[in-house]
């Protein structure tokens, strides 16, 4: 598992696994779209709009997952002095921001036909919007410091302070009365979703994961090269 913390090992492993991941992501995405658009049934209440779920839910999960992994890497980088964490933070923040943006946009496209409005000031929606702004602040911080050593550590501290938002997002549907529905799929109980809808959802999640992984491998490699050549 050394490739998770060592840039050289990471480069070696990444060369091996990049092409399989890319092929896997294309295959999974095609399969997922096939399932999501043709093979899954219409919802008895929502009709065809339920298919937005197959984009909305995976991107929401991945936006949270990206932030969680970033905060883990920040702890590793600050506490155990692993510089790969800083590389990871710089490289992955825009990917998380894009996932959050996809989640927000698809959510409001779904909200218009179902709730009758593009946006409500609801706990879940607001906290996700705050997550998006936190991602943007991370990106801007990466752009605006001149000293690299200060920049990466300050960004790591900011990520850790901002991670208080994650449990708020997760539990916002349980703590407050919201328009957004509570979690359908959880570890502790049987999912309350039909298997014909669960299958495309899982396939799409895997496809999104693979796409995110492929892009992040590219970005991390670029970041390593730019650090080695001391560009910034």
């Amino acid at each position, binding site marked *: 598992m050394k490739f998770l913390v060592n840039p050289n090992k990471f480069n070696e492993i990444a060369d091996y696994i990049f092409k399989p991941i890319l092929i896997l992501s294309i295959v999974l995405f095609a399969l997922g779209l096939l399932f999501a658009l043709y093979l899954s049934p219409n919802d008895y209440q929502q009709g065809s709009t339920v298919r937005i779920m197959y984009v909305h839910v995976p991107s929401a999960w991945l936006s949270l997952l990206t932030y969680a992994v970033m905060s883990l890497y920040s702890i590793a980088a*600050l506490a155990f002095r692993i510089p790969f964490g800083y590389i990871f933070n710089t490289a992955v923040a825009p990917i998380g921001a894009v996932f959050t943006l996809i989640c927000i946009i698809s959510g409001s496209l779904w909200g218009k036909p179902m709730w009758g409005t593009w946006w409500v000031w609801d706990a879940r929606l*607001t906290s996700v919007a*705050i997550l998006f*702004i*936190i991602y943007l*602040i991370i990106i*801007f*911080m990466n*752009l*605006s*410091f*001149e*000293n690299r*050593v*200060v*920049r990466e*550590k*300050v960004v790591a*501290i*900011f990520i*850790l*302070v901002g991670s*208080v938002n994650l449990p708020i997002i997760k539990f916002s549907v349980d703590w407050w009365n919201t328009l957004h529905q509570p979690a359908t799929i959880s570890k502790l109980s049987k999912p309350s979703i039909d298997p014909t809808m669960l299958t495309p959802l899982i396939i799409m999640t895997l496809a999104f994961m693979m796409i995110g992984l492929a892009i992040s491998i590219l970005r991390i490699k670029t970041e390593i090269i730019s650090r080695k050549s001391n560009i910034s």
Partner: protein
Amino acid sequence: MKFLNKIIYFFYREYKLNLSGIQDILTNIIFFFVSIFIFIFSIGPDKETISLIGVGIVWTLLLLSSTLSLRKFYQEDFENGNLLVMHLNGFSYGFIAILKTLSNMIFVQIPFLLSIPIACILLNISNEKLIYVFTSFTLGSLILSCLGSISSSMNLMNQRNYLLGSVIVMIFSVPIIIFSVGIINLEESFNSLVNILFGILLIVFAINPWASGLCLKLSLENN
């Protein structure tokens, strides 16, 4: 005893500095009142509407005007080397952060606290509600000072993007705004909301020395 003397001297120095720069604090308060005027001009002088949204306006403007003085928090002491002198005198970075936060609370936030009654008169907020505004703002101003300490210490070395510090404070003050405006509008759940605010204050007060101290150390070492 020697340590206590140092702390007393620290506050004496802050008092002298703030007294000589009193026009800065006063300008902040003038900004606060002018923004209230602007708000009232843009909404219209209807009394009922104003008293309905008055508390929200007061809180928003308090937040905005306390972010105005963020640059002053550490920047001057950082540039003329006083932070380093304090550290060499036996204050740890975290302790400097705590002292600075308290001094910001005393010299920047308390003037706002004193000007709240006048703002309440202007915005047609009833006298019974004044005590709620006071309670929420005394707790909230400490939280704002802690957040300001964190964000301004993060941006010490940031020479390009000055607004980022204010954005950081404002994004983290969202829960404070929610709960402290809730105190005033939902009087029956006063105790529970005050408890929540107090809990947030304790969390932020615990994070503050750690985060700001680390940022101060980083900036001083790499300057």
